[in-house]
Structures are given as structure tokens and as C-alpha cells.
């Protein structure tokens, strides 16, 4: 393989997170204190003192600001700070790209990627789309919210329906993703939802926005998580086996705009998609790694249809064949592409993708609760339906 220029230069050497709470559960602790706990936990895992962290990277306009983190931990040097664009979890792998680039180019020695979600303090996601935050609707949403189109579930339902129309995708295909993800969570003691789920349970869950039902939608959570990155050379001297950054990309398809949240002008194939066709093309193209090389995938699962479309975007199956791909059992633990092996957004916790990255690291370390034997290459897909989205390839 040719290999991305970035490959083999930076690695994730520490992972950490707070307890997983329901939305609002940690309101009294607050966003910043939660972020600090995640940073301390991740640094302890790495064996690095938080005062030696000299770079900070986040996404989704995270409220725990880099300068405040550096001051709080008495950072000896503060060299680098980056924020990836994009809402929700779309920018997460971009945040890892920014961190890895900083390490690889010598801008910083040790960069923490963090995300802290405390909706009791910071407000509930999606409320701005409903125009209840004061100040009127954000301009793009003036063309959707007045019709009552104002929640991500509704907006992604439009893409799901288009995919069903074009390719014969069914609600059973969506259900397979929910059931499989719950099966993964059932053996994860940390997962918030572990009770078994059957296809009948999925179909009996209450309707949210046709064709989506409750069990097609992820939970809401209060959680903070962090990962520590440093050079591969330095990683060799640290406590834990490194998860090397093989490649990372961010971007979005032609005319994707606000994505499915408020834009509908992209090509038809990109409308009925997770919007990850271009980040996938760039990822495979730069890295020389192919979909068939991937041992496990952490695909962003805020809504089940977006997983199915993400599998297509990343080329694990042809466009339109995502339904058959999941129905054939490929995403199960014993399948060709074990998916979201800790339970994902749907059943473990909703951390805007941080726990997807953390699970990828665990798979490469060999200590995941649902371990894929000898996992060497793991894909992480960032949040979908918005732009820019992002993607990350990690190797052992």
C-alpha cells in the first residue's frame, strides 16, 4: 500500500470517559468539570501528566475551551488548539485529524481530543431548529422549521424514505441494526441499555417520524470523553499499546450544504446516503487500505438508516445493497464486519462519537468486551447527515 503521509506518525495512547448518564443527569457537575474528569482519566491511562499536554482539539463547538483546559491543568506549554467545523458528531474524526497533524508536524507533542456533553447545563440538542431559543430561526432552518420539520429524526426519515423508494430497503433492515447493536451492548457492563431487543420489540416501539421508530433513534446522554495522542516514537515508551492513526479525512459531497438537516440540493445518490461518499473515497485513496482490510467498523449510529447508508458510502457493499448486507449478518460479531461492538449511540451511550473511537482503540489493544480476534484495522465514521463529516482509520 502507498500509505497516507500521516500514517505511522501519531497514535492514540490514552482513553478515558466519565460515567454514562441520561440527558440532564450530570447538570450539577457541568460541562467543564466533566471534561476535566475525562482528561484526567485519559492521561492516567496513557501515563502522561495532564500538565504535559500542550495541544487541545475538539469539534461541535465544544464548550470546554482549550485555553481553559490548559490553564486548569497548569499546562507547562500551550502550543496548539483546533476546532473542527460541523454539528453533532460530524467533525469528530476531523478533530483527530487535526490532533494527529499537529503531532506529526511538530506543532505539539501531546494533544488531547475531548468532548463534553452536559445537556442539563448546556441545553438540549436540536432546540435551535425548533426556534425556541430566542432570536428567531437560524437562516437555513427558516425553510424547514415553519412546516414542523425540526428534529434530526424527521430530517433523516426523509433520507430513509428515499432510500426505501429507490432500493427496496425495509424497516426490517433498520431493525437488524438496532437489534445487533443491542446484542453488542448486552455484554458491555457500562452500556446504558442492555436488555435484549428482538425484531418484534423494534417494530413495536412507538413511531417517531415514519419510517423511524423509537428504537431506530439513539439515546440522549450526559457524558464526557477524551483521548490522548502523541508521536508513535514516544508511544513506544508509554503504558498502553498505541492505536496508530493510519489516515483521517473530512469533507462533504457536492452541494451537500446543511446536509439533511436543512438542505436538499445534493445529488440523489448523496441525498439517500450518509453523506460520507467523499470522505470514504479520500480515506481509501490516501491510505491504500481497502474496505476488505477492515476488521471492525464503528459507524455513527444516531439513526439506524444512516448506518445502513454509511456502510454503502464506505464501500462495504454497493450503493443500494446496505439492506441486504445487514440482513445477511455481516455486521454481527461473527460476521465479516463486526459493527459498533460496544453498543454504539443506540445502546451504549451518545457521546458524539468519542466512545466509537475509544471502542476502536480497545479493539486494537485487544481488550474490548466483544473482542474481534486479532483486530488490526478499525474504521471510525463521524456523524452523518451534516457537513463536513469525517472518517478515521486506526491500526495496531
Amino acid at each position, binding site marked *: 500500500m502507498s500509505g497516507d503521509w500521516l500514517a505511522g506518525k501519531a497514535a492514540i495512547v490514552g482513553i478515558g470517559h466519565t460515567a454514562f448518564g441520561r440527558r440532564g443527569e450530570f447538570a450539577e457537575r457541568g460541562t467543564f468539570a466533566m471534561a476535566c474528569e475525562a482528561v484526567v482519566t485519559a492521561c492516567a491511562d496513557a501515563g502522561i501528566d495532564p500538565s504535559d499536554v500542550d495541544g487541545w482539539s475538539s469539534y461541535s463547538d465544544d464548550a470546554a475551551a482549550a485555553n481553559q483546559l490548559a490553564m486548569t491543568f497548569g499546562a507547562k506549554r500551550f502550543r496548539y488548539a483546533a476546532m473542527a467545523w460541523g454539528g453533532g458528531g460530524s467533525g469528530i474524526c476531523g478533530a483527530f485529524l487535526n490532533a494527529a497533524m499537529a503531532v506529526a508536524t511538530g506543532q505539539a507533542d501531546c494533544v488531547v481530543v475531548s468532548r463534553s456533553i452536559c445537556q442539563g447545563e448546556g441545553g438540549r440538542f436540536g432546540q435551535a431548529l*425548533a426556534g425556541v431559543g430566542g432570536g428567531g430561526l437560524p437562516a437555513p432552518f427558516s*425553510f424547514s422549521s415553519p412546516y*414542523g420539520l425540526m428534529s434530526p*429524526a*424527521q430530517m433523516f426519515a426523509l433520507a430513509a424514505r*428515499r432510500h426505501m*423508494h429507490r432500493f427496496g430497503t425495509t424497516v426490517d433492515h433498520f431493525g437488524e441494526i438496532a437489534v445487533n447493536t443491542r446484542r453488542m451492548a448486552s455484554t458491555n457492563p457500562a452500556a446504558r441499555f442492555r436488555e435484549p431487543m428482538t425484531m418484534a420489540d423494534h417494530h413495536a416501539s412507538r413511531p417517531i417520524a415514519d419510517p423511524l421508530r423509537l428504537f431506530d433513534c439513539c439515546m440522549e446522554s450526559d457524558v464526557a470523553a477524551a483521548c490522548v495522542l502523541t508521536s508513535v516514537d514516544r508511544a513506544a515508551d508509554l503504558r498502553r499499546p498505541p492505536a496508530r492513526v493510519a489516515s483521517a479525512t473530512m469533507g462533504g459531497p457536492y*452541494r451537500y450544504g446543511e446536509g439533511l438537516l436543512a438542505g*436538499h440540493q445534493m445529488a440523489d445518490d448523496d441525498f439517500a446516503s450518509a453523506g460520507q461518499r467523499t470522505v470514504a473515497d479520500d480515506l481509501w485513496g490516501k491510505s491504500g487500505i481497502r474496505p476488505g482490510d477492515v476488521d471492525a467498523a464503528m459507524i455513527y449510529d444516531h439513526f439506524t438508516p444512516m448506518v445502513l447508508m454509511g456502510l454503502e458510502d464506505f464501500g462495504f457493499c454497493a450503493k443500494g445493497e446496505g439492506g441486504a448486507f445487514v440482513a445477511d449478518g455481516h455486521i454481527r460479531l461473527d460476521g465479516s464486519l463486526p459493527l459498533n461492538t460496544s453498543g454504539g449511540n443506540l445502546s451504549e451511550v451518545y457521546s458524539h462519537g468519542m466512545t466509537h473511537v475509544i471502542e476502536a482503540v480497545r479493539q486494537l489493544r485487544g481488550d474490548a468486551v466483544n473482542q474481534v480476534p486479532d483486530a488490526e484495522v478499525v474504521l471510525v465514521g463521524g456523524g452523518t447527515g451534516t457537513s463536513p463529516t469525517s472518517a478515521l482509520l486506526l491500526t495496531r
Partner: protein
Amino acid sequence: MSAHRPGLPAPTLSVLTDGYWKAAGEGRLALQRCGRCGAHRHPPTAACYRCQSLDWAWDDVVGTATVFTYTWVEHPVHPATVDYVPFNVAVVELDDTEGEPVRLATAILGVDRDALVVGLPVTVDFDPTGDGVALPVFRPSATGNR
């Protein structure tokens, strides 16, 4: 049944968008059209996606369309919609526009749940929200489009 259900947010007008809403208030569906290459575009933007020109003007379009996709909202996210669910939201693709297909998010009024399908021919109507502004909505076309 009104599409602009009381309690839902009204559009925020701006220099870039007020022509769209005011045209609807006068019973016209007007889109931005590039002053150089003639491509229509929506939602309003400062430049043409096709030729990058900054020149544009409002242009009335025919107002027939085809349903591209839809959802029936069952869970009332917004408190104002508690009494309205289930209601539909659709994306329609407009007929007779220049350039790449132009799609609008909208509501399809006067349609039963079983009759709302992808490909349904629809025609624009206007639902006043006050202050001379209206929301473009659509209804099934009486005889199909063309």
C-alpha cells in the same frame, strides 16, 4: 387545515430571503435565478453554484412539482405540534427549473396517508402566516402534471 400551524416558528426574513417569502405572500412561487447563466437555486445563496456569479434576481416558476420524499411526523417534538400529529413534511422537486433539480421542504395538504407517495404530482398553494408572508405548500395535482 393550515400548514403553518399556530405556535410553530415563522420564517426569519433576511436581505437574501425576504423576496421568496413576500412573493409567496402575493401568491407567487419565486426562486433565485442567476443573472449570468440562468440557473435557479434554493435555499437562497449569495453566489451561483454553477457559474459563481454574484448577480441574481427573483424569478417566478410554474409551481408544479413531484414528491421526492416525505415523512409523517408522529412524535411532537415542538409543543405546538402536540395537537397536529400525525402530519406530513415532504421534499418536492420543482418542474421547469434551469440547472440542477431544485427541491423544497414543504407540506402536502389534502392528501390521505395512503395517497402520499414518492412521485406524486403536486401543485403549489400558499398558506399565509401574517405580515404579507406565506408558506409555499403543495396539494395533489388535479390531473397530474403534464
